[in-house]
């Protein structure tokens, strides 16, 4: 909550954000219905902090990112540097927050030169003369690892990694206090993605800004971020320092996520002699429990530990056994389960299997 870490200062404050999409339903007889995408999302990002948001596809990560950018209507409050978005104040707001999106192929206007695109933020905010703007663009190109000659090129002449550099450069032009990076490396090749991650590292060292880094790859988030939030079905299920969440996960979903990450130490073994039932059992941890009652814990339908207590949605509670107060999880087990050095990944899977 707000009382903690106040000395550090908050750049982003998200409190009790709910968001709905109207399902227009194209069908003739389709009913219009509201579908909740974000439910009661609250967290803060401190100045100069890299904050990671992970979760499976469709859980609402991008929706949250867009809500913060003021591109979507939502309920609740979001403050960036103490300021709420309003259409009339869009300019001032955008000075504080900028974004880098997933697909560098489509994020640049194909009919504008790189230089022109990068000047766009300055132009929009009437910063400097033409010459000053051009100089600033050249400096920024340099900073993101491209030379000034790229200013005259068109996006189609650049590789994916180069384009993502341009996007990052453009986002930095206004020296924002917060950058939202939505899957900024997911579309890139491994080797190029690494370059971009490095770039984020470098500019982090040089400039003063916080970042909301959205990704579905826990490894990447852990690598880059100071703090991590795990989202499931529009709810934050676990939040804490990168170390705590990655190494001492509390929420079953976080554990599942970690267990599913393919790594270099284990291999899937199967001699083909088993039955389909064996496979089913092995996959059980991923299978869907048929019931998904209203108002229950969002993970109820997949949770091996679920019991009747879980029919009431738990709120984020601090995990007691950690040294850091910051570590919180939305699970009944959060309070009772010792999170320190719990299980290895293998045993998580077992836990999942044994209950199904």
């Amino acid at each position, binding site marked *: 909550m707000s009382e903690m870490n106040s000395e550090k200062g908050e750049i982003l404050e998200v409190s009790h954000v709910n968001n709905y999409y109207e399902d227009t339903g194209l069908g003739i007889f389709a009913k219009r219905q509201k579908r909740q995408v974000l439910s009661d999302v609250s967290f803060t990002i401190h100045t100069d902090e890299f904050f990671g948001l992970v979760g499976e596809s469709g859980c609402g990560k991008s929706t949250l990112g867009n809500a913060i950018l003021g591109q979507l209507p939502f309920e609740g409050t979001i403050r960036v540097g103490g300021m709420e978005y309003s259409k009339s104040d869009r300019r001032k707001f*955008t000075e504080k927050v900028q974004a880098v999106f997933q697909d560098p192929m489509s994020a640049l206007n194909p009919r504008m030169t790189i230089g022109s695109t990068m000047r766009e933020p300055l132009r929009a905010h009437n910063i400097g003369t033409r010459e000053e703007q051009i100089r600033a663009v050249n400096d920024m190109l340099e900073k993101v690892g491209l030379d000034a000659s790229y200013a005259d090129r068109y996006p189609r002449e650049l590789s994916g990694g180069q384009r993502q550099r341009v996007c990052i450069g453009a986002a930095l032009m206004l020296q924002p206090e917060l950058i939202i990076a939505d899957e900024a490396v997911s579309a890139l090749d491994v080797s190029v993605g690494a370059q971009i991650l490095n770039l984020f590292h470098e500019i982090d060292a040089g400039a003063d800004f916080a970042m909301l880094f959205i990704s579905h790859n826990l490894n990447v988030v852990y690598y880059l971020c100071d703090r991590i939030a795990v989202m499931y079905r529009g709810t934050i299920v676990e939040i804490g320092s990168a170390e705590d969440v990655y190494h001492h996960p509390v929420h079953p979903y976080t554990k599942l996520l970690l267990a599913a990450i393919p790594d270099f130490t284990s291999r899937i073994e199967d001699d083909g002699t088993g039955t389909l039932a064996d496979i089913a059992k092995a996959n059980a941890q991923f299978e869907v429990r048929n019931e998904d009652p209203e108002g229950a814990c969002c993970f109820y339908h997949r949770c091996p530990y679920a019991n009747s207590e879980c029919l009431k949605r738990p709120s984020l509670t601090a995990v007691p056994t950690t040294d850091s107060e910051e570590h919180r999880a939305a699970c009944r087990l959060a309070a009772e389960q010792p999170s320190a050095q719990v299980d290895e990944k293998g045993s998580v899977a077992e836990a999942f299997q044994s209950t199904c």
Partner: protein
Amino acid sequence: MKSGKIEFRIGCTLAGIVILLAVLSLFWTPYGINEMDPASRMAAPSLQHIFGTDNMGRDVFSRAIVGARFTLAVAVSTVLFCTLISIVLGLLAGYAGGWVDEVIMRIIDAINSFPGILIALIMVTVLPPGNYTIVIALCIMFIPSFTRIVRTGTLQYKNADFVRNNRVFGDSDLRLLLVHIFPNIIPLLLSSVIVGLSNAILAESSMSYLGLGIQPPAPSWGRMLYEAQSIIFNAPWCALAPGLMIVVTIVAFNCVGEGLRKRYLA
């Protein structure tokens, strides 16, 4: 793409020839377009009259190339005006959405379901006389389809990643529309505009055919065709010359449009 290029070239060549003839007619025609000679009426094509003469003894070739001028002038100005209006309407409807979109689209729908001939007739009778009333009539008939194109394009780009990106940069709505969305619709629009040119030629000739077009003695191809109808048996060249000119021109524009479409949308 290669095939697009070939079409584009063929189209440009044909269109070039037609336009050249039209321009030529500004300075020179073999005979006056209203120069009549009853003695040599309905003369078959010959060296004197390469497309023959019509029932009043006028040189069909001269009339056909001057007709090119009128027909093209009508087509070009129609498409020009209508594009300008449609751009405004389409961008507005697409970008603003909501009731603005609803109102614009309903009117467009109504115009679309309204017989074109009636629109033409109204315009021609209501507006002050002049060759370009037909332009306004055609314009109204063409606005729905063009507006749709612009609107669809706008909708397509309204939420495009790069537009969203620039919105985050702090660009104003107007700038987003004019600098980021509109230029990207241009290729789509351009090929439609060129196809629209040929539709305008078709429509102009249909209107002239119904007596609603260019005022005589100025020839337009539609008018020439109409006048040639009664002598088609004895002087088929009078109908074939403007008819084929229309076909060639439309093929030319369609080729150019197709070529452009393939080049930019492939």
